[in-house]
């Protein structure tokens, strides 16, 4: 049985913000990660604030400039099935479709998927690890086969979200409401490395919540894709993933985003590899050079050297499916 907590349903974003400003109040959207964390006592909650009744946070709408506004409470299934998402932002549709199982996609939301806690088995297990404000990252000495090859310092998690990787490639904007009002953050500035904040995966301050995820209108010639490698194809977190969003005009690449998933504590953009694509045709030799360059500077741990080859493989596959 989960330890007891109080429960309240917020009727508006403002009310949710006020309720979440209280100590140890946790928001519940789909709550699939919340319930897992509470049950395993990864963290505790004095109160759970249900967001389910906030109409303003659901649904997908086209913006005046041809982009999309996706309410943070929109279910992953709704995103997978939405024609405009699949048509204009296939990387997001593919990433959302690759999350967990049908049951969890029916319940889980886009905002929740971005804000889920890491899957590190020391963090999820009974360890008083650095991410829980303890002294040690146990993955440094322990079994680190699922940990990062980029961006680790005093904590070696990978970010678990598939949609975060895709939304980073698509230059999404995250809208946040909080006690000091609302703000919008480019998704690349939403996630934070452990060297900046060891105990949080993103910039949300106490009392803040994600309300909307916005996608800019796709440029003419934009193609995007998400590739995910996992131990169990039917249902698993990524071992290696890549989202690519490439704009091709008159046969040549004019803009590129390549983002690695399950590689770092945040979605990991590889700008050096992106630059190699500009002005080039996406032919096989170019794809191979870029896939190799994408892993430049990777620092595998004792048990996860396989990830370097696997990440190179998913980058190569992602670019190959576009080129």
């Amino acid at each position, binding site marked *: 049985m989960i330890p007891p907590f109080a429960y309240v349903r917020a009727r508006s974003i403002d009310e949710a913000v006020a309720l979440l400003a209280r100590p140890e109040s946790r928001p519940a959207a789909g709550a699939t990660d919340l319930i897992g964390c509470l049950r395993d006592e990864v963290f505790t909650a004095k109160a759970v604030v249900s967001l*389910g009744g906030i109409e303003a946070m659901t649904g997908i709408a086209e913006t005046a400039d041809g982009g999309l506004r996706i309410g943070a409470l929109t279910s992953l299934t709704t995103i997978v099935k939405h024609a405009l998402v699949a048509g204009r932002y296939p990387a997001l549709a593919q990433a959302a479709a690759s999350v967990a199982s049908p049951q969890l996609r029916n*319940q889980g939301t886009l905002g929740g998927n971005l804000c889920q806690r890491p899957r590190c088995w020391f963090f999820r297990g009974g360890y008083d690890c650095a991410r829980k404000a303890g002294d040690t990252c146990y993955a440094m000495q322990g079994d680190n086969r699922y940990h990062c090859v980029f961006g680790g310092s005093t904590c070696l998690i990978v970010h678990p979200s598939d949609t975060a990787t895709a939304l980073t490639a698509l230059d999404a904007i995250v809208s946040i409401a909080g006690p000091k009002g609302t703000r919008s953050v480019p998704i690349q500035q939403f996630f934070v490395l452990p060297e900046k904040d060891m105990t949080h995966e993103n910039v949300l301050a106490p009392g803040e919540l994600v309300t909307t995820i916005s996608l800019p209108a796709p440029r003419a010639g934009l193609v995007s894709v998400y590739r995910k490698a996992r131990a169990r194809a039917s249902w698993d977190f990524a071992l290696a993933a890549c989202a690519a969003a490439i704009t091709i005009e008159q046969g040549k690449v004019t803009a590129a985003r390549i983002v690695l998933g399950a590689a770092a504590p945040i979605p990991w953009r590889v700008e050096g590899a992106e630059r190699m694509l500009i002005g080039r045709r996406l032919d096989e030799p170019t794809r191979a050079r870029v896939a190799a360059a994408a892993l430049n500077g990777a620092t595998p741990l004792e048990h996860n050297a396989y990830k370097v080859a696997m990440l190179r493989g998913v980058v190569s596959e992602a670019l190959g499916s576009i080129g």
Partner: protein
Amino acid sequence: MDSHDPHDTPHDAGVSRRGFLTSVSTGAIGVVSAAHLAASTANEAPPDMTAADGQRAVTITVNGEARRLSVEPRWSLLFVLRERLGLTATKTSCERGECGACTVLIDGETRYACMTLAVEADGHAVTTLEGLMQGEALGPVQRAFAEEDGLQCGFCTPGQIMAVEGLLQKTPAPTIDEVREGVSGNLCRCGTYAHIFKAAQRAAELKGARS
């Protein structure tokens, strides 16, 4: 009152003696509900907070029947179905959203009852395996699993059947890939997946034959 006592379960709809005692002993439910109603018309009213050691009045439509219950915020829908309503077809297994044995339909969509708080099911319609029965006869998906031997030990079977039911409600004539996808959130430790896929396709035929 020991709120976890399974013998305190109101098996019948309406105000049973035990349901009445539960309401009285947990106190103030009528008052709280009135506050909640007022809040829907006057938004400045404070939100309806249920204390960690309190219970909340919810109405969940289970297999077509409105069930009024008092639930602790931390109770899962799975706990309420099994231990408060006596509907034990929905199985408790991993309790962490990894196996699918507790699959039910909520408003027609497949969900894990272990990962759903009962308070969050308030106002929604839940279908369990019991709800697929046609009187004393098996429903079409259940019949298909029996005909195609879609089980070995049978423990995951209620969840598999609910996953197939949910799939067929959205996709009446699924391809084999859609079937695989539809039951991909349900583990079978006996490994009888090939038979489960056949049962799903047979179920589609049986449901089609009925309509």
